[in-house]
């Protein structure tokens, strides 16, 4: 079993994902796949790349492959209360990751200097214990290589001196069209990402499990439709029903109110 680094003052790098503005476009997932296809854990093997097979239960396998970041779109609640959520899912780089402690070879490890959780492909034996241990489904087994792969937080991009400094962020962050993904040091309470989390009541996924994810999610803002209880809304409905100035004209010809209008071109 693998031990975790001792708690330290070093940065805990991670992502903050804004579920209020994520439109579920998969840009982050595909740009991640693209970067990492030539990156630290390359290749990102694809199977049935140009075909598909059907399994016994009728489900179609189709094309599938290694992705470090996947976007799920699903609905919560039924009826008028239902809400559609786009949910990007990748490694949360937990402070106490069970995927690391469960690893029998030390292949899975958490970096002391920045908190990034990585897999050493040379010592990974492909036993998949880590993927059983991770409740977030963030691990990706490459059956062709026989090793486990996962989000590296673009470790070969965020420190890469061949890139301009502004580009040294994970691929999923720099590519996100909606601006729904942020990268930074979550251990520093004054960092932009920590302030964002605090302002928007960012939350941990499954905090009750105690793995202390570094990545945070920002919740959707409250809806503002007929179901919302904002007082302001009620007054607007009253206003609409009062039909505004027209009713006060008390005339049979509604156009009269414009006949006297003095306007200038």
């Amino acid at each position: 079993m693998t031990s975790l680094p001792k708690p330290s003052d070093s940065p805990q790098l991670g992502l903050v994902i804004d579920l209020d503005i994520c439109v579920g476009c998969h840009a982050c997932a595909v740009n991640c796949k693209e970067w990492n296809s030539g990156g630290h854990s390359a290749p990102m093997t694809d199977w049935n790349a140009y075909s598909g097979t059907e399994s016994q239960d009728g489900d179609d396998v189709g094309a599938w492959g290694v992705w470090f970041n996947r976007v799920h779109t699903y609905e919560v609640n039924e009826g008028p209360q239902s809400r559609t959520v786009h949910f990007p899912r990748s490694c949360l780089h937990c402070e106490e990751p069970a995927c690391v402690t469960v690893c029998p070879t030390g292949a899975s490890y958490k970096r002391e200097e920045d908190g990034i959780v990585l897999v050493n492909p040379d010592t990974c034996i492909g036993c998949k214990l880590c993927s059983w241990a991770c409740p977030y489904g963030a691990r990706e087994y490459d059956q062709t290589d026989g090793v486990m792969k996962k989000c590296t937080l673009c470790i070969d991009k965020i420190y890469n001196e061949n890139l301009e400094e502004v580009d040294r962020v994970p691929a999923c962050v720099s590519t996100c069209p909606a601006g729904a993904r942020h990268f930074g040091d979550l251990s520093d309470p004054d960092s932009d990402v920590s302030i964002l989390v605090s302002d928007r009541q960012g939350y941990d996924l499954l905090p009750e499990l105690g793995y202390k994810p570094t990545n945070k999610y920002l919740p959707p803002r409250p809806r503002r439709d007929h179901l919302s209880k904002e007082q302001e809304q009620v007054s607007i409905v009253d206003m609409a029903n009062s039909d505004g100035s027209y009713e006060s004209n008390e005339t049979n010809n509604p156009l009269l109110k414009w006949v006297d209008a003095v306007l200038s071109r």
Partner: protein
Amino acid sequence: MSVNPFETVVDIVDTSPKISDEVKLTTCYMCACRCGIKVHLKDNKVRYIEGNRDHPVNKGVLCAKGSAGIMQHYSPARLTKPLKRVGERGSGEFKEIEWEEALGIATQWLSKIRDNDPRKLAFFTGRDQSQGLTGFWASQFGTPNHAAHGGFCSVNMAAAGLYTIGGSFWEFGEPDWEHTKYFLMFGVAEDHDSNPIKTGLGKLKTRGAKFVSINPVKTGYSAIADEWVGIKPGTDGLFILAIVHQLLKSNQIDLDYLVRYTNAPWLVIQDKGSEDHGLFARDEDGSPLCWNKATNTLAPALATDISPAIAGSFTLPDGRLAVPSFQLLAERYLSEDYSPETAEKQCGIEANTIKRIAAEIGRVAFEDTIELDVTWTDWAGRKHDKMIGRPVAMHAMRGISAHSNGFHTCRALHVLQILIGSIDAPGGFRYKPPFPKPAPPPLKPAGKVDQVSPNTPMPGPPLGFPTGPEDLLVEPNGQPRRIDKAFSWEAPLSAHGVMHMVLNNAWKGDPYPIDTLFMYMANMGWNSSMNIPDTIKMMTDKDEVTGDYKIPNIIYSDAFYSETIPYADLILPDTTYLERWDCISLLDRPICDADGVADSIRQPVVKPDRDVRPFQDVLIELGARLGLPAFTTEKGSPKYPGGYPDYIVNHERGPGIGPLAGFRGADGLSEGKGEINPKQLDQYVENGCFWRHEFSPTERYFKHSNKAYLEKAVDLGLIGAPNQIILQLYVEPLQKFRLAAEGHGDIQPPDEHRDRIKTYFDPLPIYYTPFEEAISDTNTFPMHALTQRPMAMYHSWGSQNAWLRQIHGFNKLYMSRTRAKKMEINNDDWVYVSSPQGKLKAQVQLMEGVNEDTVWTWNAIGKRRGAWNLSPDAPEGTKGFLLNHIISQLLPEQGSGYRYANSDPITGQAAWFDLRVKIEKAGPNKPGELTEPQFETMKVSSTVPRGNPTSRYGEKDK
């Protein structure tokens, strides 16, 4: 590497590896958004594509499609060599030929046509980004039979906007993302302008602006809306006009804006039965008149410092009465026909919700006004010390367009924006240059009887904007002149052509037979047509007497082995977007934004490894071989021997105006207009493959009436004269067509079309039930059926992509859980979907966020088995389907027995969102279930190797 079990192995992470040998900048073509990209190349292969931070369209971001460009570029569906058909059409039996032979065949077919009747060439392109060239080429050839896919997609939005405000959405304009406080999005819109909209939504939501989505389906953008209005498909027009009703009732309209910038005060002649009833009263010079309340006299409506009346009835010099057009507008929409209570019944939205949204719009527009401290000068030279904005913005595209009432719905949306004074005001809708243009732009379609003759170019472009019956392309007997019947009485304002009727009409020889159908990037054997089963028959049908195909020759150019390939006789293989020069021109479909004018290029970043040629090079060479004047020197040699890049730099459409507006002039310092600059492309490449001129703050709003902007636009060659552009609440050209139908004038519609023109050519927006719903038996076909494309696939040419197909590999039919329960349909069950046209079988996915009367699916995910070089067991073919299979391209027979196109009666826009269906349970899911209809598995030319089933792209980089 061997591992010593007694030694701790430390993972060595190279955190700073070399990424690429070279980075080249170019423009993406994975959809129509045209983002700037940086392509990292390593070992002569594409390593990584990312957004270009400096690019005006995407500012560094890149969507899923753009990021999957690598897989498109290396797709095994790529064509490799010119092909000549040797078996029967559809057999997939081809012979590889050399380019010389291919170009020889094409030249032989085309020159014969040009020598006799140029109209026998129908040249149609798909989502073509070189229409500046393709349209010009068609015109040079001398055929009016040219268009791209706009008639299929969103011409209702474009035409309605251009006739109303001289602009529209997407390439014509955008919401003021920086300032808007209330944003309404109608219908499916996850398509055009894909990255700017995502970025804009992120910005406005983060700022706390309210986002309302009016859409039968709650996916994509609608999922993050603050309010979702699950409207019944095709009723948006009534919803919008009910909002207009409320705003008029509560007098929440911008009267000052209306008199300054619109034709609201222009007097409309009221003389029923006369030849000018409903037209504007004009003075001797033809200028429109209004009533000046300051002097109580008639006055030229374009005069300044007058006090125009917007209501009342006034007497013209000839004693007849006239009223301001606003009065007609107000009378119409204040009627109960447009009340929220009336709308509630049709739209399925509570009247109170409509009232509340109207009240919210009114409150934000008039009480939450924004003021920019920017001085500006109006068209009349009057200075204003502020820019006052109505921060309500709207956006819509194909969702409300693709209905048979779409033109009027889109007009209604523009009228609503005008009434609240938000057109090009801060916080509202903003024009993207070269728009605004006069409404409509002063460009007429060529192709009249005297404009088409052998071996002669047409005097103008094939597409344009008719303003009266005299501009139609019809024979003296009223019959259509174009193969797609565009600009005929069946679709007078079909500004983008009527692509979905080309195959049907060519097969039927209606209005006349053609000789050659020449297509580019248009998958008309599949998702770019309706009613695929019959479409395939039309492409393979033969004349019983001669044994020849009814469409004698089909030439097709594309980069990929699509479903259309086997039906063509000659294939001209195109390159991928990373292998060629291109230009995104102001003469075609520009990439400007509201703050700047811009255009861009593509440069080849990798060399083709196959015997393929850029289509634009091929077209220019064919032009030279055919001796088209603009492509040939006086001595008869090719004018652009360097192909497309030569043309891009050296072609001039007018003095100093060429395909690219940047880096003109001998020194490369001229913008907009200027002499030819031989180093122009080098300068584009140096500048990141784009050029942009940013407007000064004083030029950025009220462009239709902003002196500084209008003068700058003339300097840049964007418009002809710096005149104020008047917004057209009341569209007089529509009334001209109606008057003709009522029996006035020399050019009148054939009797069978009169009623249709009278009914639908209303100069003010109307609402009517979409045709299919009105005609079909809604008890038998109780549901609406829609499609949309997912953000990860939209507009993605040849969406056979090893990565994207993992996200969307097949499509299900989505329906409301509540409705399904009543029908005892469970999740994953299979159902039959029937329409008046046909029947298909698909698997069901239940959901909450969908209008109960609506089913929908992802479009163009389903593929024909064997096509795109996918193996026949690929789920695109086994579990995917196209809704197009059961959409008819024609409406049922009506009164006279004639079958009109399934189109908007004004623009000819394909009404594919009008579809009505019946859903019946077929059974539970079990292994081996296939969608229906299934077509014979396509045979793919054996010279194209299928991709390795296990793909390890990037492996050797490690």
